[in-house]
């Protein structure tokens, strides 16, 4: 498996990255860990005449946790997420999700930035970031802008990022309450048949707020406002769980593939969401 020839760029700073992007437009692609892009290049499903390796660009590998928010640089790897104690304390759902991504070798290389920017509906971080109401920072020749994760995904591999922009950081408001990232997959290393990210807060005995997002059940991650709303104000009794699952099923649009027919995926999505809600509630 030999990819098509390309010109390799390893700029030392973001100005260098943007200069190559400006010169070559959509003939250029940035690469972080490369564990989505390189397999696609080997299969010749991605044509990248100019490959920009971000590894020497400084300032993209930091995790910062303060009293109000978490900022994760684009080159932070899944392994970094798993190992970071302050992050695990502030937003344990990130560690729980990262541990369910791929395998150890891939987690050393795979980055948060690549996972969210690639737009692959199978990736776990996009749905998770929608659940957490994260914001993505994009830097381009025209300057910097922030896009909410819930507005970022347009279709498979199509996002709000322009060709001359680079996703540099993810900012997450400090989550509170119970959490769960539940993923059904055929084997370790596989993408989800269905996965659910749930973050719930409790007040008295009732649910005060609920954020729910689903992975790999449409051509984008699905943030289901209606599913969360079905839980708010309830004691999460069986009727509330059924209503949340029904609302979620109404929002997803799975397609048949080698992970199963549509009816099966909807069934699994319902089971996974119910488990995720129950686990998040037990931790709230």
């Amino acid at each position, binding site marked *: 498996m030999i990819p098509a020839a390309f010109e390799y760029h390893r700029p030392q700073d973001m100005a260098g990255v943007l200069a190559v992007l400006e010169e070559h437009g959509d003939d250029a692609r940035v690469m972080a860990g490369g564990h989505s892009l390189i397999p696609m290049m080997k299969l010749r499903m991605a044509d990248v005449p100019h*490959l920009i390796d971000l590894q020497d660009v400084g300032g993209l590998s930091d995790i910062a946790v303060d009293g109000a928010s978490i900022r994760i640089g684009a080159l932070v790897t899944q392994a970094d997420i798993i190992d970071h104690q302050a992050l695990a304390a502030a937003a344990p759902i990130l560690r729980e999700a990262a541990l369910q991504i791929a395998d150890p070798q891939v987690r050393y290389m795979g980055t948060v930035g690549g996972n969210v920017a690639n737009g692959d509906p199978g990736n776990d971080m996009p749905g998770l970031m929608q659940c957490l109401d994260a914001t993505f920072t994009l830097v381009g020749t025209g300057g910097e802008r922030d896009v909410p994760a819930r507005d970022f995904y347009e279709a498979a591999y199509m996002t709000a990022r322009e060709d001359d922009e680079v996703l540099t950081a993810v900012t997450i408001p400090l989550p509170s309450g119970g959490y769960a990232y539940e993923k059904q997959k055929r084997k370790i290393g596989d993408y989800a048949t269905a996965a659910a990210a749930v973050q719930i807060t409790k007040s008295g005995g009732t649910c005060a707020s609920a954020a729910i997002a689903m992975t790999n059940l449409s051509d984008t991650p699905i943030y289901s406002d209606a599913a969360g709303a079905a839980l708010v104000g309830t004691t999460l009794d069986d009727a509330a769980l059924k209503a949340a699952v029904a609302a979620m099923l109404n929002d997803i649009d799975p397609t048949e593939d080698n992970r199963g027919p549509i009816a099966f995926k909807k069934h699994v999505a319902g089971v996974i969401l119910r488990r995720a809600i129950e686990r998040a509630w037990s931790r709230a």
Partner: protein
Amino acid sequence: MSNKMHIKLNVNGKDEEFLAEPRELLIYTLRERLNITGPHIGCETSHCGACTVTIDGKSVKSCTMFVAQASGKAVTTIEGIGGPDALHPLQEAFKEHHGLQCGYCTPGMITRATKLLEEIPNPTEEEIRFGMAGNICRCTGYQNIVKSIQAAATEMNAAKEAAE
């Protein structure tokens, strides 16, 4: 487009310099250019782990890294871990506990296991299975691989204690 790049690698402590196309995958650099044939090509699709090497303290599937990305870095393969004259405790343990049958996955298994034991010196069976999940073996059923890694951990911890 087919411009060759000047590549510098340190492989198992030895500096290497050559010209290569950036698209060359590191596994081919090791095997075909440098004749370091310990890392194997199993699936070539980032799944099986037979090509695992260590770079910057990370276990990396060398079929999923361009030589251009690796330029300037130090790479360790199974050849840098131990050899026939001085086996690493993991190699001894795999031999002793039948941690292999055909042996094709073994270089990747042991290379990955060296990192696992650095990170978790005394792993449980569950931690070994989870930490080795990026390496596939089609012969053993994994039971003896787990046993071998446990035995090596015990041996290495005892040696460390004796040294202290």
